[in-house]
């Protein structure tokens, strides 16, 4: 089982969001409760932001 960092709270619904030890800044994770996309703002200490909305020119 993968180790996890201290779980930060979802900025939208306050649910705990477990991050793996391989978490990276700017990585996108999903809140297990409200399913919103969240961006890892900081790993140490773990901090989450609402992820930016997809823009028209995103993607390959």
């Amino acid at each position, binding site marked *: 089982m993968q180790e996890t960092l201290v779980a930060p709270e979802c900025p939208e619904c306050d649910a705990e969001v477990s991050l793996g030890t*391989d978490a*990276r*800044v*700017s*990585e*996108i994770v999903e809140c297990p409760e409200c399913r919103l996309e969240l*961006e*890892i703002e900081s790993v140490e200490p773990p901090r989450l932001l609402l*992820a*930016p909305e997809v*823009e*028209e*020119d*995103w*993607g*390959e």
Partner: protein
Amino acid sequence: MSSAAARLGVLASRVRFEEKNILTALERRGVACEQIDPRALSVRAGTPWDGPQIVLNREVGHYRALYAASALESAGVTVLNSAAATAVCGDKWQTSAALVARGLPTPETTLALTPDAALKALEELGYPAVIKPLVGSWGRLVTRVTDRAMAEAVLEHLAALPSPQSHIVYVQREVAKADRDIRVLVVGGRAVGATYRRSEDWRTNVARGAVSERCPLEADLTELAVAAADTVGACVAGVDLLEEPGGRLTVLEVNDRVEFRGLQSTYGSDLDVADTIAALLTAKAES
């Protein structure tokens, strides 16, 4: 890594499967790499930049990727892919023009400079045809047009859009194809993997739910993909090919910041795409 090796950076505002695996692959190779967030980046023209000298461009937004590459290059940084490659790959017309100039097979395409001219072009190309935004991704707003009435409606909508770029219309003859296309991943002038992408949607984008299956790296396919990547100047490229009836391959597009999650899943432990890209980056830094 030798002490003389150039510093490496990965430019990305959104760390997805691809970026995370590339960063991890570089770490596994013992290569120091800086993660650069373009949202915090500014580059003063004519002033040396104190960041990495070699940067892999993995920015998800086309315009931010394009201008970041251009700005970094102006500061003396080597960017993979180059700003020029991103400019060509990110614009469907520029890609078509480059492929045609190189003599590579690509679907018949017309650029109409107004929606009115596009209607005439569609009548000449015949239906069904496809209207695509010049800049766009994941198959968004790509429209299959089956007759004149539908074409008139779509073009009326385009004419009503505020952006002048929307009034320049890229139209393409539809390629009668199987329910799949082929994605070939080219890294450093070599085709390293390929997948069929199948979909019930006529657009076979993985982002639209297409399913990937491994595709044999046959010579005709790899030669065409490598030539297409070379044509647009991309050293890391996802080349999309279509099989016409009879089996002839044609190049649909070349992606300069390629997403490879689907391809990686079909290869499992037989291919580490992220490490292949990391190896290319490391070699550039040491050369």
